[in-house]
């Protein structure tokens, strides 16, 4: 397939914690879809001291695919997502950065669509959405869907953010945009991803969207409980009052 890199290079940030099983699979898929598309890429694994040996598996992958394709930036223990991104992009050689989950809920097959969308509009960031077009989710029951749509609706009414999916974490950023946003964001968890979009709007960055499918294989084990809903609402109200 013809290479249409334009001199662009894409760094994929993969923060991991106990992803020994999934890491080889996500890397295999990334290598497959980037390889087929001809875009220049590198994968940066940021492991937070996983006790299950994720880093050891990452080292094996590095031997298989090469140190120029798989970069390791481990940390001693589980720290926040924001700092993981900061740590990850420090030595990133791409001018664009993908962020995504390493647990296979995000599928690399959408990567060429993200890139195409970004080039179409010259967007500063492209956000994967589960709520528009043929975006969607697999593995959610009615309760989970209701909470998701309900929370998203409240967020839309209060923040009017100009993006349909704020808690999504499958995104493509221009590297300097990611750097400038991560510095300014103080929230944690779901709210961190929301804050990134809200701050992007404040700074007048342009946002494009790509429908994605989200395959949740973890939901059965980690139900969305009252605590998480409460902290989400707290975070949302903080953003409402301060941005």
């Amino acid at each position, binding site marked *: 397939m013809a290479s249409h890199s334009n001199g662009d290079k894409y760094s994929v940030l993969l923060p991991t914690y106990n992803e020994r099983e999934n890491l080889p699979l996500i890397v295999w898929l990334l290598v497959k879809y980037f390889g087929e598309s001809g875009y220049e890429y590198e994968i940066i694994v940021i492991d937070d001291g996983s006790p299950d040996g994720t880093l050891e598996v990452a080292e094996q*992958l590095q031997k298989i695919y090469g140190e120029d394709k798989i970069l390791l930036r481990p940390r001693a223990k589980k720290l926040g997502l924001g700092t993981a991104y900061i740590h990850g992009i420090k030595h990133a050689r791409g001018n664009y950065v993908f962020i995504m989950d390493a647990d296979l809920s995000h599928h690399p097959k959408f990567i060429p669509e993200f890139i195409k969308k970004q080039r179409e509009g010259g967007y500063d960031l492209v956000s994967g959405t589960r709520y528009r077009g043929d975006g*969607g989710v697999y593995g959610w029951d009615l309760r989970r869907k209701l909470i998701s*749509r309900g929370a998203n609706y409240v967020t839309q009414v209060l923040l009017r953010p100009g993006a349909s999916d704020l808690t999504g974490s499958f995104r493509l950023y221009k590297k300097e945009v990611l750097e400038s946003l991560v510095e300014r964001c103080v929230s944690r968890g779901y709210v961190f991803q929301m804050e990134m979009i809200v701050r992007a709007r404040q700074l007048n960055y342009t946002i494009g969207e790509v429908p994605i499918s989200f395959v949740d294989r973890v939901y059965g084990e980690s139900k969305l409980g009252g605590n998480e809903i409460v902290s989400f609402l707290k975070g949302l109200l903080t953003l409402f009052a301060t941005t």
Partner: protein
Amino acid sequence: MTKLLEWVFGVSVIGAAWALVTFDLLNLRLPVAYKEVAWPMPVYLLVVFGCYSLATVGYRVATFNDCEEASKELQDQIKEAKEDLRKKGLKM
């Protein structure tokens, strides 16, 4: 201006307009019909907004795409990936 301030501002403006008409604060001596319509407006609008919200969220939940093929495709690719990685020397 924060979103909170925008809301406070918007609600104040609408609230002032409503109070003006309902309680005739400027002694404009508007027709009684205006006051009768204006008086229940806040409650009425809240109810309308509540119904709209329920309908919107309900619709979005009902039409939330279930990605069956995405899951199946992923399962197949996982098998393929495991095979290929095994061949390349990965020890799981």
